């Protein structure tokens, strides 16, 4: 899910960086001091989650956890993911510094979308919680896959064949992420339901 350095064209990189800068500005504005601890822990979780490889069949993918991150943090997902991705590119050489903007946007934007789509349902309709949380985890990875395919497609047409595979190949991760998100949300609602209140 990390785009390496030197793959994307300059316009795509600049657009990604600008969108990420905007998202991060909004996120930092919305990030209260009370949420800093949560943001830090979720940032650490995101940072480490990429090392948990899910080997299904011949492909090996990793967890992203951007769904649960978006549900709890909303727009603050942008700065949190930016920090974690920066550290991943420095320590693990995943992605790269120039593609940081695009990568952050690809992963954080689905989080914010999931926040608006599922937050209300999870907070107010208790009976739907599990289904909504599963859908949140599932769709957040789906969103990343679509954005990843889109950014590759915008750069070079011949990436298209591979791009169309991305969604399909990440199908197992979407399901696993959905299950993990469902479990996390159920757990948080039992232990500290105030976490979902803004």
């Amino acid at each position, binding site marked *: *899910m*990390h*785009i*390496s*350095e*030197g*793959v*994307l064209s300059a316009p795509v990189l600049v657009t990604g960086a600008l969108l990420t800068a905007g998202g991060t500005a909004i996120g930092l504005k919305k990030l209260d*001091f009370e949420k*800093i*601890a949560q*943001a*830090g822990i979720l*940032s*650490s979780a995101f*940072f*480490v989650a*990429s*090392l948990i*490889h899910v080997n*299904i*069949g*011949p*492909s*090996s*993918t*990793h967890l992203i956890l951007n769904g649960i991150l978006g549900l709890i943090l909303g727009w603050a997902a942008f700065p949190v993911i930016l*920090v*974690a991705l920066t*550290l*991943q590119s*420095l*320590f*693990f*050489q*995943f*992605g790269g510094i120039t*593609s940081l903007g695009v990568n952050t946007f690809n992963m954080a934007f689905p989080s914010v979308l999931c926040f608006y789509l599922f937050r209300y349902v999870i907070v107010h309709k208790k009976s739907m919680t599990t289904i909504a949380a599963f859908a949140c985890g599932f769709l957040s990875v789906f969103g990343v896959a679509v954005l*990843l395919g889109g*950014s*590759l497609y915008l750069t070079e047409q011949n*990436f298209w064949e*591979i*791009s169309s*595979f*991305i969604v*399909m*190949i*990440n*199908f*197992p*991760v979407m*399901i696993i992420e959905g299950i993990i998100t469902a479990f996390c949300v159920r757990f948080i609602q039992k232990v500290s339901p105030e976490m979902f209140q803004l």
Partner: protein
Amino acid sequence: MTVPIFTMILSLLIPLNVCAHRVNIFAWVDGNQIHTESTFSGGKKAKHAQVYVYDPQGKELLKGTTDGNGQFSFPIPQKTELTIVLQAGMGHRAQWVLPLEELENIPLPKNILEKTTKPSSKPKKMESIDTQLETAIDKKMAPIVQKLNALLAEKSKPSFSDIMGGIGYILGLMGLSAYIHYRQKLRQISESDNKV
């Protein structure tokens, strides 16, 4: 309903290299050939990935596809510094620069060898010695090359200190934001004290 199930089964079957986050390409000169080996972080071979070879001016000299072992070999296209770029799909890219010095040490091509040898010696025999020598060197070199590859793969794996370092940075940022927050609060308090 059958469509998602079908795609899921398909996604389990298609042997593509996906989402390993980082690829490495390693190239070395052997005789008149350049061999490359491509792996994902964690040691998985990059199968059926595109390999491009560029000269120092950035002109594409040739391209090819790695085989089932992530390997791709090609004859030396020209004696300049070569940049070998691997594109393993989904935004994965790696490169290896082969410096001129490594290319200069290659043995002379066979036709030059034949010219310099005495007319009495049969070229065929010469060639067989040459190939024998090459296979012997290959055999001796194989463990070294494998060890180098293993070392490179090992290096590409994140270590425990990397993980702890990253988490440490995040905790540090949390501390920094707490510091800024409380400094503002202290300033507000001291301002209100001054007013009183």
